[in-house]
């Protein structure tokens, strides 16, 4: 799941699309009109973002509306925070162990 999120965000255009639908819902056509690329290309980007859980899709009549899912980003952020929490806890143990053994042997 995290791989899909990271891959989806690796593309600058997809990051722009995501920023566009953050906090507001837009139709595919409204999103496409912001970019100088074909409508099918935008649809492809929307599919990747949706599969990664970064945006939600809702149908209203014949239109499809898109909106960013804050929880998608929150998951990525939580993953990175855990990465450092785990690492720093291990660093703390290793450094304290080394310091303690240095003191008992009386030197560096």
């Amino acid at each position: 799941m995290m791989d899909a999120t990271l891959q989806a965000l690796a593309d600058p255009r997809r990051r722009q699309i995501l920023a566009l639908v953050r906090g507001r819902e837009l139709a595919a056509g409204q999103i496409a009109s912001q970019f100088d690329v074909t409508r099918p290309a935008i649809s492809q980007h929307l599919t990747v973002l949706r599969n990664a859980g970064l945006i939600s899709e809702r149908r209203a009549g014949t239109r499809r509306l898109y909106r960013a899912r804050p929880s998608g980003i929150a998951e990525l952020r939580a993953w990175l925070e855990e990465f450092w929490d785990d690492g720093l806890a291990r660093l703390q143990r290793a450094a304290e162990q080394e310091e303690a053994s240095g003191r008992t042997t009386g030197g560096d």
Partner: protein
Amino acid sequence: MDAQRVATEGVIDREIRIRARPETVFSFWTDPTKMARWMGRDVRLDPRPGGELRIDYNGSDIAVGAFVEVEPPRRIVLTWGWEAPGDATPPGASRVEVDFVPDGDETILRLRHTGLVAEAVEGHSEGWDHFLRELVEAAGG
């Protein structure tokens, strides 16, 4: 949306107290054998400005970066990314600043990781791309 939240979205701040002197803690960032005791399985690094860093976690997740500042035993700054093609944080894309603040015989370690992809998503896409290019250049890429 609130400006302060936007500004800090792509940043991770951590602070931890370690019962060891800054010299000891610092060495766990500059000695590859010591670094492998807390991060990664195989570590290669050259701890001087411009020197490279490569941390292999499990044979497929590999972090790469370069040292930007090395000031023993007070401060280290390095660039950080993942080697896998297409990763949202490619080599050089993000920056890790570590300060080692002495407090008696102990150390307060402050870590700040900036330039993360969440920041780009918060409406700073152009800034992100610019930042990335600058960092890649600074890293000699």
